[in-house]
């Protein structure tokens, strides 16, 4: 058991208690037809008549039903299940008594209300546990006061408080009304990891039934009577702006209520205000189909104000940057140049990857209702706080007059860290003086930017006459940011090492895309190490383990960003689970391991050729993310990451001509499909008691390395340039 100081101050709890009477949270059920308070028919408890706010996370009903507020945006990473599980664990209530509600943005009650960097669980682990533990403690104190006994005379478990040496029992539901006035404890006792009942088990997605029955959960599903619909048109190319358009004609079209140019330029944009185009044509009307027809009828005059870039320009710019670009960040250990002079073998390879789009399956959308002195925003955002700030700036409103509520989100991948579509909805609502839901078409979504940058890196390794790795260098350039983490592996494991992260300009807008930079770096580095191991005549896993051994026993340089034991640990686990070293006829194996977002993942791929087409038969994943919160859902995240990694490195790219992406929809832009996915993906976790880290991103990066290495074994050709399927060497 751990004693831990509560990090809540008195004030935040007073605010929360006030909510019980003031109804600030109660009745917060804004999504039409979606009634998160309604228990499923199979729920074990009746619907309460009265609810009691215990704190910002917990509301207990007189029947013992417990509402747990999930603070963070749900983008498919399943935090709406796993975050409440953590609260319920420490509160100690039966899971069947729990209903989950999405919390609104509230910086006074919650911390880190965003979905990004695989950080939801990692950053909120303590806060969620304490919310549950303080709730349990307050219920216990209320019972102790009621019965005139000491706290130490009582115990609480599964939603029931018992006298240790007596007969009396009381349920949380029965005592909840008395717990509301209890002073928030200064210290609470947390459970020992060994005592966890919910954490580490498999709890099904709380929204499962709503998803399979098509309930209105997503931003695009949101409806409010009296709201208008809006669509936008942005310039056709980066480097262009809008001059004017056939406004009168568009306004006269059936179902169109208004059409105008909207400007969302902010004087002091924040980090999540990245956006391809600030001036847009907005068309407002009653139905999506009529708006789509109006968009087709648009005749706009565009003005070229910047360079109209092409993929050829991008490649040349990256090549030039690798020679003479601006170094953003670097590291140097020993003397790589001297070591290369002494080396018996030198291997140098260049890797590249194109711009790619996020392509969340739910296109960008947002609801906004702006009045003279307030703005209400509802929709899919990974960063509600950033959206609140940007809308407040745009409308010149105080922050407290802007509210943001989060719907379930049809995919994030980093795309919805950027808030422009919510800001645009607010600007349109202000202009028309009515509530509005902005909808992007797929083409709007795919062509407006915030892409994964395009990258190009050169890796170089030197082996001595005994095939020891004596020098390793990497230079990586990106538009606009280089894909190099100077202090990551193999930093610390090689005597002579250098890493340079180089930037180069583009007017194509970019942003964080699932596992930023790691989504390229892992594949390049792990494919390169595979080639180096082969040149050294060593097994690829043994070769890596030797390097980790060096980093453990005698690390090079002042620091590195990984724990070599845990890195080696996942490689050893995957080696055992995949029975590495055995061979099967016509089955080709590749391995990779990577550390990012505080989590270690190693993967082994088994590939076969089916009529010349590479098919991944089976994948083994070994994961060290500390404590696993929701086991089967955690596996789902890793499986999805593997498929996403294969898909984007194998098939996906945006190419540019005259400033515009040539791929605008899924007919030209390839996403991985059923028949291209692995047949089976097994996931194994390293069991330990380390505080949990995230899983949204770390499964993806190593998949690209393992894929490239298996492809080499299957085809005899190394693949250096993504997407692999367009490379001439690729079969099929």
């Amino acid at each position, binding site marked *: 058991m751990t004693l831990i100081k509560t990090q809540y101050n008195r004030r935040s709890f007073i605010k929360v208690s006030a909510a019980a009477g003031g109804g600030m949270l109660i009745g917060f059920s804004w999504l039409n037809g979606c009634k998160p308070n309604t228990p499923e028919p199979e729920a074990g408890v009746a619907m309460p008549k009265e609810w009691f706010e215990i704190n910002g996370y917990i509301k207990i009903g007189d029947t013992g039903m417990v509402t747990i507020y999930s603070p963070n945006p749900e983008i*498919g990473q399943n935090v709406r299940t796993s975050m409440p599980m953590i609260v319920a664990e420490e509160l100690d209530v039966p899971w069947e008594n729990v209903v989950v509600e999405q919390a609104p943005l509230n910086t006074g009650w919650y911390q880190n209300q965003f979905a990004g960097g695989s950080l939801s669980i990692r950053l909120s682990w303590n806060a969620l546990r304490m919310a549950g533990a303080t709730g349990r403690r307050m219920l216990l104190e209320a019972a102790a006061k009621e019965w005139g006994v000491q706290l130490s005379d009582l115990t609480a478990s599964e939603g029931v408080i018992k006298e240790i040496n007596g007969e009396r029992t009381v349920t949380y539901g029965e005592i909840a009304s008395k717990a509301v006035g209890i002073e928030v404890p200064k210290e609470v006792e947390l459970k020992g990891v060994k005592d966890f009942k919910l954490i580490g088990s498999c709890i099904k997605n709380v*929204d499962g039934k709503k998803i399979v*029955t098509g309930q209105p959960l997503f931003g695009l599903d949101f409806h409010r009577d009296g709201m208008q619909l809006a669509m936008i048109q942005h310039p056709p190319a980066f480097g262009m702006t809008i001059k004017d358009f056939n406004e009168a004609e568009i306004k006269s079209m059936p179902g169109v209520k208004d059409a105008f140019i909207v400007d969302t330029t902010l004087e002091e944009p924040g980090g999540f205000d990245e956006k391809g185009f600030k001036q847009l044509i907005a068309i407002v009307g009653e139905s*999506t*189909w009529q708006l789509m027809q109006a968009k087709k009828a648009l005749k706009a005059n565009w003005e070229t104000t910047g360079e109209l870039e092409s993929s050829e320009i991008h490649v040349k710019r990256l090549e030039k940057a690798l020679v003479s670009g601006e170094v953003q960040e670097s590291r140097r250990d020993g003397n790589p140049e001297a070591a290369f002079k002494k080396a018996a073998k030198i291997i140098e390879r260049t890797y590249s990857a194109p711009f790619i789009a996020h392509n*969340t*399956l739910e296109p960008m959308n947002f609801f906004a209702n702006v009045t003279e002195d307030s703005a209400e925003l509802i929709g899919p955002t990974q960063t509600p706080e950033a959206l609140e700030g940007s809308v407040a700036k745009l409308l010149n409103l105080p922050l407290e007059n802007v509210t943001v509520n989060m719907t379930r989100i049809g995919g994030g991948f980093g795309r919805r860290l950027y808030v422009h579509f919510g800001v645009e909805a607010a600007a349109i609502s202000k202009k028309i003086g009515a509530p509005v839901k902005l909808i992007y078409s797929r083409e709007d979504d795919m062509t407006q930017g915030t892409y994964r940058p395009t990258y190009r890196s050169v890796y170089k390794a030197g082996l001595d006459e005994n095939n020891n790795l004596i020098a390793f260098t990497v230079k990586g350039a990106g538009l606009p940011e280089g894909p190099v983490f100077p202090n990551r592996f193999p930093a610390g494991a090689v005597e002579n090492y250098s890493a340079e992260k180089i930037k180069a300009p583009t007017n194509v807008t970019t942003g964080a895309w699932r596992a930023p930079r790691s989504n390229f770096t892992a594949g390049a580095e792990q494919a390169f190490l595979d080639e180096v191991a082969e040149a050294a005549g060593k097994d690829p896993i043994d070769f890596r383990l030797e390097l980790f051994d060096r980093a453990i026993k005698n690390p090079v340089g002042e620091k590195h960003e990984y724990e070599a034991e845990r890195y080696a640990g996942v490689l050893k686990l995957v080696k055992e689970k995949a029975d590495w070293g055995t061979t099967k006829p016509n089955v080709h194996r590749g391995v990779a391991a990577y550390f990012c977002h505080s989590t270690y993942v190693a993967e082994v791929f088994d590939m076969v050729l089916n009529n010349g087409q590479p098919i991944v038969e089976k994948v083994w994943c070994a994961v060290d993310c500390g404590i696993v919160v929701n086991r089967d859902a955690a596996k789902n995240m890793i499986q999805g990451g593997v498929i996403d990694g294969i898909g984007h490195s194998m098939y996906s790219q945006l190419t540019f001509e005259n400033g515009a992406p040539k791929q605008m929809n899924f007919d030209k832009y390839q996403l991985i*499909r*059923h*028949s291209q996915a692995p047949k089976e993906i097994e996931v194994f976790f390293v069991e330990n008691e380390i505080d949990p880290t995230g899983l949204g991103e770390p499964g993806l990066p190593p998949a690209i390395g393992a894929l490239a290495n298996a492809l080499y074994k299957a085809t005899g050709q190394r693949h250096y340039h993504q997407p692999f399927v367009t490379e001439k060497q690729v079969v099929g």
Partner: protein
Amino acid sequence: MANFNLKINGKTQQLDVDPTTPMLWVLRDHLKLVGTKYGCGISQCGACTIHLGDNAVRSCQLPVSAVGNQEITTIEGLSENGDHPVQLAWMEEDVYQCGYCQAGQIMNASAFLKKNPNPTDEEIEGAMNGNICRCGTYTRIKKAIKTAANSKIA
């Protein structure tokens, strides 16, 4: 604009709408049946899959004027209590991540299983290839389809 009487999920719906409007938007905008999703609008992603009679079709490419007397079933009408074998199998396998594509996946899988109650892996892949899952739940979808197939036989 024109008047249509549509048979949707066992009920007759009357509406006055532009005859070129795809069923996707008739369902979503006019009838507030938003379980059917918009993903691409060009029948490439399958998120908008509904049943026209016994066939899975892409509602983004089906103009309301082409429906006539044919029965339409959407995800909301697949079963009364969310207990169609395919829906149960999806919950059993905890398939979804973001969940946005899953209505389309389920509508496609349920129409497919009706015609081929005991499919091979290759047949499942062939039938489901038009439905994109951006989160990458393909291995779970395949498992759920097999679970549903087995439950129907049992």
